[in-house]
């Protein structure tokens, strides 16, 4: 959202886009861990970490799939101001998927770090 570094920091490159594929949906699930959120809110939080989204609109197809797969539920709620908002809430199945990811992620991250920092296990 900072116009100045939108060019080089918008996560639009090939590598960030490939990395996002596997993890984005789990970030969405994680954002819903504590409370249901509506679309605009959810997207704003994702977009506040620039590497996570480039086009907010692309999240809606992802949310639609998460709903079809039973990871999230939606509910239309009246808003104090403006039109009603569709809230997304984590289902028990979504919570399980999130826990699974949370368990696997540190090992995965450590493994990647290991190869990036010390590929041969000794000094090069």
């Amino acid at each position: 959202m900072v116009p100045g570094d939108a060019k080089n920091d918008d996560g639009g490159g090939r590598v960030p886009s490939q990395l996002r594929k596997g993890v984005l949906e789990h970030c969405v699930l994680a954002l819903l861990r504590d409370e249901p959120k509506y679309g605009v809110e959810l997207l704003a939080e994702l977009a506040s970490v620039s590497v996570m989204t480039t086009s907010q609109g692309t999240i809606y197809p992802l949310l639609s799939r998460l709903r079809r797969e039973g990871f999230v539920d939606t509910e239309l709620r009246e808003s104090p101001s403006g039109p009603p908002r569709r809230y997304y809430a984590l289902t028990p199945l979504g919570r399980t998927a999130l826990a699974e990811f949370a368990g696997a992620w540190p090992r995965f991250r450590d493994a990647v770090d290991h190869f990036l920092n010390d590929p041969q296990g000794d000094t090069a």
Partner: protein
Amino acid sequence: MNAIDHPLVAAYLDSVARETAGLPAERRAELLADLREHIEVSEARDDEAVRAVLAELGEPRTVAASALAEEGAPATAVTAVPTGPLAGRQAARIIAVLPALGGLLILGSPFAGALVLAIGLALLWKTPLWDARHKRIGTATALAVPVLLLLGGLFLAGGWVGPVELLVIGVFAIGVPVSGALVLTRALRV
């Protein structure tokens, strides 16, 4: 003015609709409803705010590509589907009315009408623009004319109907295909 009535928003949603021609109708309608809702909730008031909301949502092509990817469409289909010869907006409008037009033409010229009807139905079933349900509606409503005409003729020959009944049949013979064409045209805009 509400953001949703803004011409830029209409153009944006139209554009997404066009780029997602390859999606199942239900999925496409859902995506458009989600985007519409997002824009409404954002409560953008002026041109600049509307532009900002649309810029944040991203290029229609990008959003469409993400929807097609979620649907498990092969990557090549993302570009192949919307640019197919039978997927253009202009072609869509013609295909939507062609079967009904053929049906109506039968009233005046049975041969030309049947030909247009056949071509219209063949195109309707070939294009990816509608799902099977809408294709069936389009087919059934277009075929209503020859069927009603046949029934009317039989009843008339049997001496079972008077002028009033004939008029009713006539109204149906025109009304049914016209509403069929309307349903198809509407389904395009979702």
